[in-house]
């Protein structure tokens, strides 16, 4: 180590730094700096056009006084009902797709398609599908089942179920692919052993497949909760101004409104940090309890 670097080594090091530089600089400039700045600004009152003034913890205490914070947090947590439902559907799809029949690649692509579709375009399509009077969904409900469909996006009680429905449609494909990979990595020896012991299909599924997929369950739950906390785009399109009586607004939508509609940047930054801390704690708890139910080979 005390050796002086030879010219060749030096050159190699220069290359190293050069190749490492773009992502590191990118993170420093567009990631870390804004983050640090937002901590700083969360203690200020700032409307982006006049100079900021120091207000201490005021923004944070104001947060806890605003009932809209709690309402949007409640809405956000409500939307997480979609996570277990989505997991069940994804797993079911993955099992169905985990066989070699003709055209399976096509089917897998079909289910994955929503994942790569632009979310705004998809939301606009759903807006049309969910229209009370001439929407596709209510037409089907009426023609096939004789049910008079609700006012999906216009009724304060139905906005959140609608959003969950849309989330499911867009989300199951991605998780299906993960489960598919998981299913294919489960060794067939377990099943053979179980068969010798006389296990039936259901028992094999419950005792072998499900536990061995637990790392994937874990990943899906963690990412799902983080994703739900951060959901925004579909709300922006489908629940204008937070939807009827603010029933569709999520916490990120609340932050967005304060940042880019009312230009209370300090307050919005404080709310964003509250959200960040919340996600951090929830994820930490999940990791803490992970070894109780996640099997690692």
């Amino acid at each position: 180590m005390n050796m002086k670097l030879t010219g060749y080594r030096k050159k190699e090091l220069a290359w190293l730094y050069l190749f490492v530089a773009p992502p590191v600089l990118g993170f420093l400039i567009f990631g870390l700096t804004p983050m640090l700045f937002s901590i700083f600004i969360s203690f200020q009152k700032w409307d982006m056009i006049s100079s900021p003034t120091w207000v201490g913890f005021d923004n944070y205490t104001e947060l806890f006084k605003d009932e809209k914070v709690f309402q949007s947090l409640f809405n956000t947590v409500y939307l997480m009902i979609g996570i277990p439902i989505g997991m069940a559907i994804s797993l079911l799809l993955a099992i169905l797709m985990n066989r070699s029949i003709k055209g399976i690649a096509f089917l897998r692509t079909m289910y994955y398609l929503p994942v790569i579709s632009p979310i705004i375009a998809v939301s606009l399509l759903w807006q049309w599908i969910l229209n009370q009077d001439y929407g596709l969904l209510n037409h089907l409900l009426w023609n096939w089942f004789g049910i008079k469909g609700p006012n999906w996006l216009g009724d304060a009680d139905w906005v959140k179920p609608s959003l969950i429905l849309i989330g499911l449609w867009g989300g199951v494909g991605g998780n299906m692919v993960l489960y598919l990979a998981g299913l294919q990595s489960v060794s067939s020896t377990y099943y053979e052993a179980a068969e010798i012991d006389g296990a039936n299909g259901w028992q094999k599924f419950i005792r072998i497949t499900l536990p061995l997929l637990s790392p994937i369950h874990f990943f899906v739950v963690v990412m799902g909760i983080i994703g739900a906390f951060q959901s925004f785009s579909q709300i922006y399109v489908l629940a204008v101004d937070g939807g009827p009586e603010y029933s569709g607004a999520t916490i990120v939508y609340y932050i967005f409104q304060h940042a880019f509609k009312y230009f209370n940047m300090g307050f919005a930054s404080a709310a964003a940090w509250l959200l960040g801390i919340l996600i951090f704690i929830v994820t930490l708890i999940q990791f803490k309890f992970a070894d109780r139910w996640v099997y690692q080979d």
Partner: protein
Amino acid sequence: MNKKLKLSGLALLITTVLASGCSDGGSVNSGDKNNSGNNQGSNQTSNVETSDKEPVTIEFMGHGNPNEKSIFEKLIASFEEKYPHVTVKYTSVPPGEYSQKLTTLISSGKAPDVFYVGGSEFYRFAEAGTVLNLQPYLDETELFDPDNVWKQALDRYRFDGAKVGAGDIYGLPKDVGPWAFVYNKDLFDAQNITPPSAVAGEWTWDDMLEAAKKLTIDSNGDGKPDQYGVAAYSLESAVWANGGNFIDYETGQVLVDQPAFYEAMQFVADLTNVHQVSPNTEAEQSMNGYTRFLNGQLAMFAMGPWDQPAFWELPFNWDIAAWPASPDTGETATWLGSMGFAISNKSKNPQEAFDLAAFLSLDEYGQRQNYELGQAVPNLIDMSKGEFLAVDKAPASRQVFLDIIEDYGRPDVPAFSKDTQWIDLFWQQASRVWNGEVTAQQFTAEIQPKMQELYDKFNK
């Protein structure tokens, strides 16, 4: 050799990125210096005729529909002809993104020279010193006669250091938007009902309700009307006509819990819930009032001058009228919107920027284009009262637009508050009254303290 070349190329790329980042940070200072230098320069040269002026570029940002954009492109072309040393860089942003984009540009020191401002935005910008005081330029200019511009529009862009509405002028009106009451004349004729009067105070809420009842028709018998009497009745109009108010901007007192307010609000809600002459929330969701009116399935509605091009295409006769008067007061009222041109305080060429704003706001050719294409009522008083009134196109009662401007139009509610959360909260929660869940009296009593708190917190 090859390797070295690649290496130096990469290094060059990185240094340029870094360097451009640095120069961005430093440009504020040098910009300021330039600014003051140019200021003096343009003052000195303003008497000299065009030819030997240094070429300048003015950035102009706005929003609007394709119609508006093409009008502005033409206007800018004729401006550049008149001022050969000025090049205008015009950007039109989608309206939904406009406010975000503008504020970001301003906060990063890259504000366009000339840009649109609306009510509460103008207040914030004026207070923060973002927009230039135009009074000195206005006093000097020979381009137009300020007395020939609607005072009601100009006054929106006054700021006295604390409040909007008085003091020096910081913006020029792009337009004045009188919100008028419109009706389908054919539907009235079909039922043999006398249509509403164009004269304020002659036609009351009672007259409207009576007409609306006759005009609400369920022709296929499915229990849902296929033709409604009235839709989207303006709450502002009802409240103001009734002698009420949303807020007293002098004292900062939110007044929605006063009887004059909630009685008017109840009247509007009852049109739907009691009399069923106006589509309820569900019906409005499935087909909004605008579409119903275009389809000839709605007798009375509201419109701004910018709706004219679409309405000119309609196969039925329509006209505008004075908003119905409250029977209690005999008065009527409605809101008068406005959008303006402001100039950035950081503009390096304020004189040219002002010339552009004045040209766009008040040039006769542009104003004529604007009303001929059905975008607005002219900002120039003589043109409005002259050729605009004489146009042989619907609406026949064009005078109503001018009556609203001169007589009973008021600034829209948020125009004089820099933060609009208090009124946004009201509209967000008002659905509970519109769908009949609570009475207007209960609702306003409940929401007034919350609105007051929000107003006090962000506007005082």
